[in-house]
């Protein structure tokens, strides 16, 4: 068998392998790609503008300006001059056929964008960059079973991303989801805590889900749905 034959055989084998990968789909809808792309363009513009202004004041000031524009040089060691290279989108949201909403989170930047995306997908949601409950929200009591029926979290192999699946159909009437991230780095808070609520034992409404790639801790919970808190 000569080189050309060998190449042909390997090509056929790889093509057959590729074609055997049936039933898989890109789960990010076009809208998500475009909205993330728009956010990326906006960030590029802000970064460029900030960098240009800072450049007139010298390199030291430029570094400070870029770091404060929402794109820190980062714990992963990327240089400040290329703050977005080799980084995945901060998060993507994909609504599944069964109505579940899958959020892939690298870091919880642009919480307002995630909140509006979830609400657009029919999920009453309050998203913030801290775990302090929004003053306009009231915590909804949550049991372990209720938590498990609404939320499913996985850590992607290789990616370090957190995949959080929300089942809106499991939300009790009048409840909405609450998502937050804190930078306190407490990774050991993995359990729910029982608190007293009259005669009934219920659980604290916020639950640690995962440590994100920027070392913040992602926490989810339930709140009473309202126009001010969850948009509906």
């Amino acid at each position: 068998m000569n080189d050309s034959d060998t190449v042909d055989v390997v090509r056929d084998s790889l093509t057959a392998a590729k074609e055997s990968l049936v039933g898989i789909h890109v789960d990010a809808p076009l809208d998500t790609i475009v909205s993330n792309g728009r956010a990326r363009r906006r960030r590029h513009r802000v970064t460029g503008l900030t960098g240009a202004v800072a450049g007139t004041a010298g390199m030291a000031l430029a570094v400070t300006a870029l770091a404060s524009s929402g794109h820190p040089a980062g714990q992963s060691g990327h240089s400040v001059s290329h703050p977005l290279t080799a980084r995945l989108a901060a998060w993507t949201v994909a609504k599944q056929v069964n109505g579940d909403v899958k959020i892939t989170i690298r870091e919880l930047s642009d919480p307002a964008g995630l909140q509006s995306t979830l609400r657009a997908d029919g999920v009453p949601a309050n998203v913030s960059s801290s775990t302090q409950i929004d003053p306009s929200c009231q915590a909804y009591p949550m049991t372990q079973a209720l938590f498990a029926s609404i939320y499913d979290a996985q850590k992607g192999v290789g990616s370090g991303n957190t995949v959080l699946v929300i089942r809106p159909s499991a939300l009790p009437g009048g409840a909405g989801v609450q998502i937050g991230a804190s930078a306190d780095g407490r990774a050991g808070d993995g359990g729910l805590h029982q608190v007293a609520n009259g005669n009934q034992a219920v659980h604290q409404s916020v639950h640690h889900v995962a440590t994100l790639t920027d070392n913040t801790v992602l926490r989810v919970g339930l709140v009473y749905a309202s126009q001010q808190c969850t948009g509906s």
Partner: protein
Amino acid sequence: MRVRGMEQEPTEFAEFYESTREDCLRIVLLNVGDLHLAQDLVAEAYTRAWVSWRKVRALEVPTAWVVRIALNTHVSWWRRRRREVALGDHDTATLVEQATVVSGDLLAAPRRLTARQREVVTLRLLLDMDTETTARVLGIAPGTVSAHLHQAVAKLRAAIPSHYGQEICK
């Protein structure tokens, strides 16, 4: 004029996305072996393609650009992951799901190649580009493409002997 051009971009990108995304996902999955990861990488690559669509649309093979971005992001991702903390048994769940989709020597073989060899194999054999175009896309000499392809094919041949046997008997 500029406004009209901007208005055409979304439709053009949408057509590109819809017509190429599944093939790109399969190629990237073949290279990384993890469905969630492949989906993330492809979504990221298309996001970057949207951001740079005016440049990407003018390329000889825009699909090759998307696949390369996804694979290169994967390389950077692995480097960064060494500094990340695993999340206990959540990893297992993804591996189980992955095993149902990608398994066997044939599917695992591309992941034993070097990053450059994977790029060459992907462009030359999976995207069916010729040596000269592959060389231009990768910014290397055609002879270098041939050398990488030769080495990669030798590794793949060793990894998938049973499939060769089937082909030879045709």
